[in-house]
């Protein structure tokens, strides 16, 4: 009896508001062992082709529908992004703000060896649930944490934040990457005004990528990506790409993360041997695991409109670090402060199944890996920065859309 009760819970538990809960049902059925269950599984499988809107019936049943409309993190409902970028007069740096001014559920996972962060303890599960009103990704090393003060000011002026007697306290976690001096002047770096301006620029429009915001001074710029899942949820990622390692495979000269491609979002072909071998020498050095310097750190954020609680948000951030592991080698080095934030823009309802959660987490990891590739492809050469990937390997990019990449 308890066996059947268990089955009923799986099969008939109230579904979350999103329409396609059937993957969950399928999972329950596939894991069944009793004859009755197997019968229902068979029936369920037989019915699958009749279920409208279902693209595939494999594994957990939750599949990728495609990228979101802009293939950037603002495809996630509730997410706004703004950049403030400064170039010239000794500057080549910037700040990116992910704005959830009405409050989102946040988490983080910090795996690099040299982090610079702010308000991350507040994200750990178990404490007061304040919501997260913005997240700051910035250049400027530890000095750049000041950008978060400007975002707090912007939010306070508009009455956004955790309400307290007499006002609000905006909760604005932040992480920085090391780009000091890349514009020529060591003290030309983001301050509170950078954060304020970035918050002011925030919108739900497709996220400008490449040499903008936190990507301006980063080794490989800034990238973003999104994915729509068959369970109705959208997942997105944004990354300021400044690793000690490399996101390009020295053997093929293709990005490590190329295999994560959805559709033809990258549209790369293997570069010619001539182009690849010409660039080989410096890349071999990079692979020798000896390229330590302090000028690193990849900072990222993944987001979803699924109703995650703070524990689930933390797990999404944790698993998303695998997206960096798949697209960057070596990764999480001592000189990298790699840190991934996560945000869920819908209040937790505890209606998600483990199948939903697994799908969302892995989609986030893959979206982050894809965002890394977008950073590589969309970052033009600016000042002393690295040459754009497609300029270095024209044969790899011959099929890419000729429309300008900068949006």
């Amino acid at each position, binding site marked *: 009896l308890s066996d059947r009760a268990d089955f009923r819970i799986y099969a008939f538990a109230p579904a979350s508001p999103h329409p396609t809960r059937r993957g969950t049902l399928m999972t329950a059925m596939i894991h069944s062992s009793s004859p009755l269950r197997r019968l229902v599984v068979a029936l369920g499988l037989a019915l699958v082709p009749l279920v409208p809107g279902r693209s595939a019936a494999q594994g957990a049943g939750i599949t990728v529908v495609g990228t979101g409309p802009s293939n950037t993190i603002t495809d996630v409902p509730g997410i706004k992004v703004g950049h403030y970028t400064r170039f010239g007069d000794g500057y080549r740096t910037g700040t990116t703000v992910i704005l959830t001014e009405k409050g989102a559920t946040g988490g983080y996972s910090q795996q690099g060896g040299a*982090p610079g962060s702010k308000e991350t303890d507040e994200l750990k599960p178990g404490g007061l649930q304040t919501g997260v009103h913005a997240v700051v990704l910035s250049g400027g090393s530890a000095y750049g944490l000041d950008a978060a003060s400007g975002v707090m000011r912007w939010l306070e002026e508009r009455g956004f934040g955790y309400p307290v007697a*007499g*006002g609000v306290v905006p*909760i604005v976690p932040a992480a920085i990457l090391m780009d*000091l001096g890349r514009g020529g002047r060591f*003290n030309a770096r983001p301050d509170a005004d950078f954060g304020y301006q970035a918050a002011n620029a925030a919108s739900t429009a497709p996220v400008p990528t490449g040499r903008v915001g936190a990507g301006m001074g980063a080794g490989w710029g800034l990238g973003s990506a999104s994915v729509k899942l068959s369970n109705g949820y959208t997942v997105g990622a944004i990354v300021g790409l400044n690793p000690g390692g490399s996101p390009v495979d020295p053997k093929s000269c293709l990005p490590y993360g190329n295999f994560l491609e959805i559709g033809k979002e990258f549209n790369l072909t293997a570069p010619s041997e001539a182009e690849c071998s010409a660039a080989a020498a410096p890349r071999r050095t990079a692979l020798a695991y000896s390229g330590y310097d302090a000028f690193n750190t990849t900072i990222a954020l993944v987001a979803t409109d699924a109703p995650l609680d703070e524990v689930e948000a933390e797990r999404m951030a944790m698993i998303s670090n695998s997206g960096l592991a798949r697209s960057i080698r070596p990764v999480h080095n001592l000189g990298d402060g790699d840190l991934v934030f996560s945000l869920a823009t819908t209040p937790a309802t505890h209606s998600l199944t483990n199948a939903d959660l697994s799908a969302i987490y892995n989609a986030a990891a893959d979206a982050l890996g894809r965002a890394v590739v977008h950073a590589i492809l969309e970052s033009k050469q600016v000042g002393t920065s690295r040459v754009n990937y497609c300029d270095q390997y024209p044969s790899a990019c011959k099929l890419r859309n000729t429309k300008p990449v900068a949006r």
Partner: protein
Amino acid sequence: MRRLVEVLALLCVAARPLAAQQGRFGLTAVDGLKVGQVTLSERPTGCTVILAEAGAVAGVDVRGGAPGTRETDLLDPVNMVQKVHAIVLAGGSAYGLAAAQGTMQYLEEHGIGFDVGVGVVPIVPAAILFDLTVGGKPGIRPTADCGYQAAARATTGPVAEGSVGAGAGATVGKMGGPTHAMRGGVGTASITMPNGIVVAALVAVNAVGDVIDPATGRVVAGVRTDDGRFADARTLLRGGAFAPARPPAAGVQNTTIGVVATNAKLDKAQATKVAQMAHDGYARAISPVHTPNDGDTVFSLATGTSDVPVDVGIIGALAAEAMADAIVRAVRQATGLPGIPAVRDLPATPAR
């Protein structure tokens, strides 16, 4: 049992004169540290900066449920940077984290920081406490200027205690809401061992709970009844005064933040252990403590100026002792504000 308590109390008292003989008591009894405080008396609030200009190995332990912190991930022992150059404690809730920016500026101007070849990046972890509702002017809070001025004023001299610096706007005993609270503040204490090892604490006490004297178990400062006596939060809790439908009225206006320091040589993992054990000082001197509405955080610093071999467990145990001592000193030296009395404002009733 009473005899044991007396002996322990005597030992605690006996430890003090050693430091006093050297004319040094409190956090600055630890070689290599300076303390500077700025009080913004117009509200009041303020900030307290602990400078370790030569760098000190550091750790942190965050136990409360509503922390506001900066650069604490860096202190994880698995991470690369080993030493910090300052710790900033500030009022002003999350806004007050800006004070650390001013301390960074001061340190950079003096060439102090993690050397990145083309310049320095000062490592300045920070924690804040919530005091915005005290004083009626929530717009006044520590800014970068507070952190800069406090760093500039930092000395190896005695540390001012009571309603100063990060503790200027602090309150305790808020289980009955702000109207029944008392004043918290800054306290410091140190223990100097015969072998020259010093273990010290500095704390800004702003707990939702009551402050308890560990030597007597009695309330020193805490939630008051309508007629001004100690209600004793422990009695209220056990008596069922609070329920999910009627939680303590304290909101988020809490958080006790502190630093323990030693002149011993510790590595980052050991420093982390010391920070963890120092929370036992919170547990002995504050009740209830580490609630979801407290952001209770303890940093630890090891300046390593002494070569005396140490046992990290002993340093941690002494850190807890010094911390409990500092907490009690903080409220005893606080000064009252309109509607929020301090211990010194209460009639002297030995029965307490």
